């Protein structure tokens, strides 16, 4: 998979922190952040996942001129698409070497990990796929390692 360049920006950190309801000034107030232990604005621990914004081919973002599977005039923009529960996120793990800061320019490289299957009462056959992403900074140093596990279910997860 191609390497993705991920510039870390203060306004993006602010918006991300808002979306998780985190009012900690270290995510939006440079003056207040300066007086903290980290000495300036840092990103919240799950921010690395916003690398999706910088992936030109990210499949969960509508793109001009391409059909989108969400609803528009009809319940799905892709006619005849079989009903599917789609993929779900099963696990996510981060290892941090240092916090991300505005001005960092990260390079993210994702490699496939293990694949395994499991039978579940609530959703039928489950197929798990692991992906490992290394985020390196402008000096080439590893700053975050992320391991995500996605699961494709045979049918929607039973809520009973």
């Amino acid at each position, binding site marked *: 998979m191609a390497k993705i360049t991920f510039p870390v920006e203060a306004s993006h950190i602010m918006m991300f922190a808002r*979306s998780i309801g985190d009012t900690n000034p270290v995510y939006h107030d440079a003056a207040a952040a300066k007086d903290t232990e980290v000495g300036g604005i*840092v990103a919240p*621990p*799950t921010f690395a996942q916003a690398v*999706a914004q910088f992936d030109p081919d990210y499949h969960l973002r509508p793109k001009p001129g391409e059909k989108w599977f969400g*609803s528009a005039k009809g319940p799905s923009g892709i006619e005849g698409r079989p009903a599917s*529960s*789609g993929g*779900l996120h*099963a696990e996510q793990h981060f290892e941090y070497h240092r916090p991300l800061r505005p001005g960092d320019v990260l390079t993210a490289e994702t490699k496939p990990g293990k694949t395994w299957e499991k039978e579940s009462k609530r959703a039928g056959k489950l197929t798990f796929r692991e992906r490992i992403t290394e985020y390196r900074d402008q000096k080439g140093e590893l700053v975050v390692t992320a391991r995500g596990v996605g699961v494709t279910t045979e049918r929607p997860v039973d809520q009973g």
Partner: protein
Amino acid sequence: MALKASALKVGDTHSECVVENLSRTQIVQYAGASGDYNPLHSDEVYTTQVAGYPSVFAHGMLTMGLTGKMLTNYVGDGRLTKFGVRFTNQVWPGDTLTAKATVADIRDEGGQKLVDLTVSTVNQDGKEVVSGSATARLDP
């Protein structure tokens, strides 16, 4: 403020209500900030009529982000060295989530004090939605 190893013991807990009555709008906010526009999280028509779920539901990563807020409030900014979770149940609009960290171990690694935490987030019915662990640097 960072935690001190000398003031912690195994079994200590910290918990916070990290979202009350989760709104669809907050889920949309997370989609915009993270870049994950999967219609399962914002498109009620698609999610109910095509995907077969009772309503849209939160991104797992929104629940992990909410859980992370409890962790950074507890251990301090920039102190986490590891944070990992499994998403054990879906989170729905209207849910109220409480995230809890429990001290599992306090140890020394190359002169650095570390705390291992077990992490659990539950909804208003006590059903676990996130189960995981985290490690953070401590002051002596």
